[in-house]
């Protein structure tokens, strides 16, 4: 058995007095479909938020492809540069203002104060930066950096971009588009527009794949609940992800469409995508999943193949009930 794609170890998260996740430990293998089930309040969605980087765990570790999420979510060079130059600039300006005010002492002291002020400003920032960085590394939620690594999620309540069309929703997703840099939109127009054409082509293909291409230019807020679920699935697929966390993908979707979605997920899984699905529809979970994780009261109750889960007494007690 190879290393797991995602490993969760002793995960813990509390909100005030409520312990949402309490020492959950499990693994997700690459290329599989994993179901995550449990009664309401078992901590499934919180676990998703922790894995996708929207929350920072109080305790425990999550590793993705063997790397701790904390390192994947460390501030990027770009961010450090922005803050660094801003603080350096401010420090310099304050120093210069003080220096100019000191002109009455003569030019030389004024110059000295200017330079000194700038140095104090910039130096102060660098020290502060070092401190924050070590603090932030443990304590910052940067989900976008995980998404860039191929770890993406959908939301329990769909979050479509209502004022944008279905196609725009999809075209937003792909990573590293040249046109996302404003400098490129001004000076490299050709490159941006050729790339845009490719992205549009991919978006249209995705709409066709999900069979909602007739809604192409419809604002997403006009879509039905089920169509929004499809759109959201399409949006994360546009990212070329590796691990996809689906939060209740078929809730509110009609049976035919549910079947279509399940087929799509199975096909994608056979193409190498890894899925982790939270769902209350047991038929879907039992049919799709190769492994099922049952959570109760923030802990992992049991992990195993569907047959085993179906017949486990503890699971029946906590969640499934007697049929």
């Amino acid at each position, binding site marked *: 058995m190879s290393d797991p794609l995602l490993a969760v170890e002793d995960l813990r998260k509390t909100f005030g007095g409520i312990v949402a996740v309490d020492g959950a430990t499990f693994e997700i293998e690459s290329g599989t479909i994993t179901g995550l089930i449990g009664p309401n309040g078992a901590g499934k969605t919180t676990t998703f938020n922790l894995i*996708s980087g*929207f929350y920072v765990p109080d305790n425990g570790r999550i590793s993705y492809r063997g790397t701790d999420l904390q390192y994947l979510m460390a501030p990027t060079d*770009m*961010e450090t540069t*922005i*803050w660094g130059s*801003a603080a350096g*600039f*401010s420090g310099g300006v304050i120093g210069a203002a003080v220096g*100019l005010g000191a002109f009455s002492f003569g030019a030389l002291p004024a110059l000295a104060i200017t330079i000194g002020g700038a140095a104090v400003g910039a130096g102060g920032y660098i020290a502060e930066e070092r401190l924050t960085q070590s603090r932030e590394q443990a304590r910052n939620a*940067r*989900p*976008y*950096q*995980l*998404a*860039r690594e191929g770890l*993406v*999620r959908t*939301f329990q309540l769909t*979050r479509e*971009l*209502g*004022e*944008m*069309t279905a*196609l*725009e929703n999809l*075209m*937003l*997703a792909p*990573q590293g*588009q*040249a*046109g*996302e*840099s*404003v400098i490129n*939109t*001004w000076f490299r*127009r050709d490159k*941006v527009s050729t790339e*845009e054409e490719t*992205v*549009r082509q991919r978006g249209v293909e995705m709409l066709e794949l999900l069979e909602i291409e007739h809604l*192409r*230019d419809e*604002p997403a807020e006009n879509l039905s609940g089920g169509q929004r679920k499809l759109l959201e699935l399409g*949006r*994360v697929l546009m*990212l070329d992800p590796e691990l996809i966390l689906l939060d209740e993908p078929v809730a509110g979707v009609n049976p035919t469409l549910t079947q279509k979605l399940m087929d799509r997920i199975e096909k994608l899984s056979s193409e190498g995508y890894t899925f982790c699905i939270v769902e209350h529809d047991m038929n879907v979970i039992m049919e799709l999943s190769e492994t099922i994780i049952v959570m109760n009261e923030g802990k992992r109750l049991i992990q195993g193949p569907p047959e085993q889960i179906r017949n486990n007494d503890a699971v029946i007690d906590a969640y499934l009930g007697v049929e």
Partner: protein
Amino acid sequence: MAVADVVVSFLLLVSIYGILALGLNIKYGHTGLLDFGHVGFYLVGAYTAALFVLGPDTPGDFTVYVIGLGNVPLLGTWPIAILAGTLLAAVIGGLVTLPTIRLREDYLAITVLGISVIFQRVIQSETWLANGPDALRGYSPPLQSYFPVTGQSLVGAVLFGVFVAVVWGLTTAGFGWLCRHRSPPLQTRLYQFAALGQTAAPLRGAVLAALGVGAITTVVIILFGIILPVGLVVSIYTWTVAVTAVRLHYSELSRPALITAILVGSGLLVSLVPLAVIETVSIQIAVTLSALSVLVLSYYIAIQRSAVIAANRLSIIGVGSLWFVSIWYFVLPLVDPLTAGRLTGALQTLFQNLVWMLAFGGDVGVGYVIIGLGELTVQLDYPRIQLAGFILFLTGLFYIVEQTVQTPFGRVLRAIRNDETVVESLGKNPFTYKLQSMMIGSGLAGFAGALWAMYAQGLTFTTFAPRVTFIILLIMFVGGVGNNKGMIFGAALFWAFQQATTQLAGFFPPAIRVNIQAFRLVIVGILFLIVLYYLPEGLLTQEGSTTGEQRTRRTEGAE
């Protein structure tokens, strides 16, 4: 002063506020960042530009400022000053953004409002910086010493050529844009003629045509020194294009709708007549207000009764206003000379308003004697070339902004306005985009500030009160949030209301004119309330999806 001069100064303000609104629209309309401190960046741009062009501070006089770069070669010129104002406003916009951007929308708005007031207070109390509470003066706009231009010198001829080139280029670009969308054969032929045979894309055609026509103009003026015929030709060309634009825009209006529109426009005019005729103020106001209410009521009834009118109710008001404005521009100035029995005077006024490009009268100028018009003195004055420049800037910035938001970058901005969490879940850091959006928006405000410094030729801290931000917000909401064209439209509408209410105050006896002047703000407020009540999304709805399709208007039957 001819009405053309009033319109020129009006358009100067429209360009400045249009650029300001474009900046705020990037922040709020596209990214959803509510910035109540937009005026702060306007201030930064204005004062930076002024300090770049001011000469070094002379000790002992009344003005004190930190540094004046006006005498430094290259640095102390207006282009560098505008650039510096823009860049510094953008950088300061970014710096202000860094600590505040993580706040929720309303807190962000209040924080930035506070920062803009701090900027204003810094100018007011730090006397060494930019003359403190007193006005910062002592610089002049670029090239002003060459004006007025009469075409008698080489420099004058070249400046005139540049002016004509800008006017011709802008008009031709607009004309080409019109013809590309709907192209009746006659207009297309006229366009090709105006664009010197260019059938290329509107922009390139316009630039080439501008260069060509500008060069021809310069040569003609150097050789013959005639500016009136040149001004006449170019003015008539701009009028033709304007009329064509209006006709194409409203080409689908039926005859009954057009007649209603003219009735509405004339009705408005008639209801204002008591102001000019009746002497007693109380009766004057009462009669006018009743006439106005009768007009509004009958239009309301007409909408109820007639489906045609109801379907076109906005366009009818549009055409009616244009009708009213043309009467105000061309006909009303003739009333005074005609009642005094001066036919030549009336014709002269008409001619002056037609040839809007040139200023008439004045001490310096070329004299012409024209049959039926008598003797006229003509020159090209400074406000007109300033206007050409400002409109060129406005158009250029509009084009850049439009190009910027119709790209993946603009798409991310709109996604942030919709739902930031989604943007995060899709691997894009909203923070960097919000930062860039604030920097671009603030940079535009800085640019507008530099233009204001040039226009006003003197800066006082009171100009940059938070009030300005709210005027720009108003312009943005009326024009249509998220629509760049709407920003220019909104700015024009705001200043038109301002102008109209000022003119209205002129009808009242001097004793109560002050009261009316104060009251006009109330009128402007009410007018905008009406607009926003009936069109909550603004006059032009948001457009500009990157999928190339325009969104359909959601308020049914609004146009």
